């Protein structure tokens, strides 16, 4: 599984502009910071929400918006692992493989998901629905092993719960259910 985050920017989809309806949001973002440059990350996030991944034209748009050379935006986008520099499946399945998760079976979960999603060497499933990635610590060590599907954390995974989650996603079930809730376990009163 190679990461779309590290992949070189391959294509560009042609010049883009911010959708009219989102211009107030762009302005709101710009108004939060003393410099335009500081808006680069929120704008890249906004762009990623709109266009799913960041190609060269999207980076050019962000660069124009904050009035910096596009190389500056490219460098920022390349530095952060969550900015997608290549397209992914509809569901980006990121499984944590760092120590706390690894100690309690992350590797087995990844192997299971590889098989269940039938992904190729790049982590993409044949139906284009999933992209499976190994990622580093997502700060959910107490509920390991865990994965993040798009924005949502799925924790205390077992092969069985993975199967349920995948089946749910395949059947079009929304990603709303298992958000992290401390309520699901009891905190001992000290």
């Amino acid at each position, binding site marked *: 599984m190679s990461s779309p*985050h590290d992949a070189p920017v391959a294509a560009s989809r042609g010049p883009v502009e911010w959708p009219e309806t989102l211009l107030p949001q762009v302005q709101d973002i710009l108004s*939060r*910071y*003393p*410099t*335009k*440059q*500081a*808006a*680069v*990350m*929120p704008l*890249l*996030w906004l762009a990623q929400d709109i266009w799913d991944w960041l190609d060269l034209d999207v980076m050019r748009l962000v660069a124009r918006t*904050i009035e910096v050379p596009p190389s500056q935006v490219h*460098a*920022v986008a390349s*530095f*952060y*692992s*969550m*900015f997608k520099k290549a397209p992914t499946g509809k569901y980006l399945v990121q499984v944590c*493989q*760092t*120590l*706390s998760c*690894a*100690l*309690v*079976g992350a*590797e*087995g979960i990844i192997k299971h998901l590889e098989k269940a999603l039938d992904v190729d060497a790049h982590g993409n499933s044949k139906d284009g629905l999933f992209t499976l990635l190994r990622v*580093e*610590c*997502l*700060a*959910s*060590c*107490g*509920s*390991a*092993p865990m994965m*993040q599907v798009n*924005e*949502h*954390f799925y924790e*205390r*995974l*077992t*092969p069985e719960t993975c199967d349920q989650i995948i089946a749910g996603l395949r059947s079009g079930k929304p990603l709303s259910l298992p*958000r*992290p809730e*401390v*309520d699901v*376990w*009891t*905190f*001992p*009163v*000290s």
Partner: protein
Amino acid sequence: MDFPRILSGNWETPNSHTLPVARSLGVYGRLEKALRMQPTEIVQVVKDSGLRGRGGAGFPTGMKWSFVPGPDKRGGKPVYLLCNADESEPGTFKDRYCMWKDPHLMIEGMIIAAHAIGCKVGYVYIRGEFRYIYDRLWEAVHEARAAGLLGNNILGTGVDFELHIHLGAGAYICGEETALISSLEGFKGQPKLKPPFPAVEGAWRAPTIVNNVETLSAVPWIIEHGAAAYKALGTEKSPGTKLFSCSGHIRKPGVYEVALGYPMKDLIEKECGGLLPGRTMKAVIPGGSSVPIMTPAEVYACTMDYESISTVAGSYLGSGGMIVMDDTTDLVAALANLLRFYAHESCGQCTPCREGCGWMYHILCRVRDNCATAEDLVTLKDLADNIHSKTICFFGASAAMPVQSFLLKFKADFIARIEAASKGIASGTHIAPPSPATVGA
């Protein structure tokens, strides 16, 4: 032991993240009192409380605040308060709960801190993976703003404070305060040279204070109950309570709030429910993946505070992210796992860390896979020594300390792999046998 749950007290109450519930639990109850205090008074109370930064470095919070130049010495520049919610140290997941369950407590702490340092605009820098919490924090900010708790003339005290939430995008290094500032400014998240220190010249070259979520969340309680009450908790040099993120081979992983000075053995055996049946302890990383590893003997002799862990085990309390490993753990594979993390996360600025982390990882992979020689271990130790404290920020040391301490305290595990290699014995591939049964209480 009996102590108040200063930070996690509201977590079990349903909808504690909403303003009405939070207020009913006393959040924002200390705000007006604080905002009517003189800024220097607040700084003094926090100084007297002995509160230390909970992000990992443990620097006295009140002293940090006092480094901000006075209004007449800032050359007209604003002061910025940044809340470090990048929580990225492996093994640490406490801030996530603070923000998910009690965002208003953190905001209350930020408003008080902002008043103390003369700041009008603050930012919460939250890691990109916490995007669902980012949404929740904005909701909390909007709620607070609508209730007159943020914005101009808060509670009629004449204090102004505006708060923005800034979403990171996946970079461990942004938890380092100067890297966080670079990132907030819209650059790559690379640490900056010190001096100048952020309190004097930080974000946008203005005086800037960066505090951890947990640190800021402790401030309202200190204002309410006074420095003496806080100092009465914990130990002489480590007052107060702290959240410990406990993970690994324990029965009840989770976040636990205990007073500092709490025996490590009790934390593991009582709060965390102990190890799994039939297992014995192999090692514990006490304060997030970067700090030196501890042997069971050290664990049993230690209390959870800054001094004890340092004097007994030569390690650090760090962020309080405790990773427990039992006797099924392959420590060589565990270290290789950590070095993969550091190689992936090095910002790439300083030569030793940029080139060294990947190099150490590759050597460790060979040791793990029974393909290494005794010279490789010498090289490994040497590389770690050559990285430690030779870089702009502490990341280099963070990557080096696990290597140095694993090799020092668990040398036999590594030697065994070299011997196995010389005999042509193939290695296993798992850090620990897959055992989903370890999960949950």
